[in-house]
């Protein structure tokens, strides 16, 4: 079923819509939630909440492509849950996120100094400079939250080699952020 057909089902308020969404993208959405939460039960709950959120927002929205829309919802729900869990249950994804945060300067008025949207656009521009494979590697680590072990399995090589590739990409991103004035 195409995205347009699934969206049509949502617009028709057909319960088939959620089944179709789950059938087509459920595996990816569950993986995102599992990557971030590292807990099967929480992940399942998160994905179900995500389906409901799609149901409640489509219509009026008409997201095409559908996957990024649903993925952002599930990811945000998973991140909210992570925040509620508190520091004692930090997941592997937050450690990965720390690697990116290290690129930003230590500053008390960071929020005033850095516009997150501008930073995001800069990261998007940086992704333009990478090969398709490295873009996928970068996003699967820092957006989809896959572990280096999973990435090594998917992209081939050892975990260390994957870590080294990610390290080089972060280093290149840091250079760009410096050049664009995000970091001193």
């Amino acid at each position, binding site marked *: 079923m195409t995205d347009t057909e699934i969206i049509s089902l949502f617009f028709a308020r057909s319960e088939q819509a959620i089944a179709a969404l789950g059938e087509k993208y459920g595996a990816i959405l569950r993986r995102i939630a599992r990557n971030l939460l590292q807990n099967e039960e929480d992940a399942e709950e998160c994905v179900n909440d995500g389906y409901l959120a799609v149901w409640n927002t489509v219509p009026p929205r008409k997201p095409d492509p559908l996957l990024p829309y649903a993925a952002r919802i599930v990811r945000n729900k998973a991140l909210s849950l992570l925040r509620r869990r508190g520091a004692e249950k930090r997941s592997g994804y937050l450690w990965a996120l720390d690697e990116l945060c290290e690129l930003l300067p230590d500053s008390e008025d960071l929020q005033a100094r850095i516009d997150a949207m501008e*930073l*995001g656009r800069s990261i998007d521009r940086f992704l333009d400079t990478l090969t398709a494979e490295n873009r996928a590697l970068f996003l699967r680590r820092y*957006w989809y939250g896959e572990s280096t072990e999973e990435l090594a399995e998917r992209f081939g090589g050892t975990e260390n080699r994957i870590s080294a590739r990610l*390290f080089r990409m972060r280093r290149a991103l840091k250079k760009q952020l410096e050049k664009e004035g995000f970091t001193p």
Partner: protein
Amino acid sequence: MKEEIMLHALEEISDERLLEAAFYVPIAKAHRPKRLVRVLLIAAVLTTLFSVTAFAVWQGAMKVRISAPEEKASFHLLKSDFTDDYGEYAVLDRHVALTVTVEGAERAHWVQFRVSWLPEPAASSDRLERHSFFDVLNFASDHSLYVGWRQRPLEQLLREANMSEDEAKSWYNRINCDARAPASLLDISVYDAALLHNGPLIFGVAEGATAEVLREAALGDYELLELQVDYSAFYREQLKQDAPAELKLQNHVLLYEPTEKYLIRISGSDSAYSFESLEKIGENLEVLVTDFETQLPEMASDYLYCDLGRG
């Protein structure tokens, strides 16, 4: 604060990028040989490599890139392994007479050795330096060198390695005597799986020296390879002087253990140590493979480069 900003920033990644990453299938993976099969390229590469004249190499601070001329298509694995994706490293032509690539094991275990025989003049030299396993653990504990070792005190590392302090001090990963010493260069080093784990190890001979493979054979359980590097031209052309006797010719014996996948390099000045004596050192080495796993930290490149230098 940083976390919030970064999470918001990541929200700005475009749908197109997210879709691409979600459905990306690494093409290269299908063509990559299984790691366990990609054992050691020494023998396979060297026979052909020796007839090859040059690679273009740039070697700077912690950055090395090798690019092979187009006609070296037979070194596909080398080329694919050392093609950097980002083009951020400049390439400067420098002559490399020989390149040996060693592929390491999956498991990052440690290998240490003891010597039970050393030739003179090294045997009685007071310039011989021994780098023990204890030194490695001590350094790692102090500097949080290895992933997973952070904030682990030395006592804990010793316990995990199942060694007393004295035992750890009696095993070595390197014994060397630099070439300026009266005993001339002697270097015994082990490149173990912990090191090779991160990626291939490349031995290169750069800076205008020439190299020759003199022998390939089996030595006990080892695959043996003997190389001789001649620095005469380097001294003549770059330093405008004749090479000192102890630096002119350097002999290298590489011993590769294919089961545990570690490499021992025994190098010496030809003026003091013949290949026979270097081989005899190898025959009399006692080797300990420690079932003590760790990971190397993130490195600037996914391979290690070792210049077979002048000591």
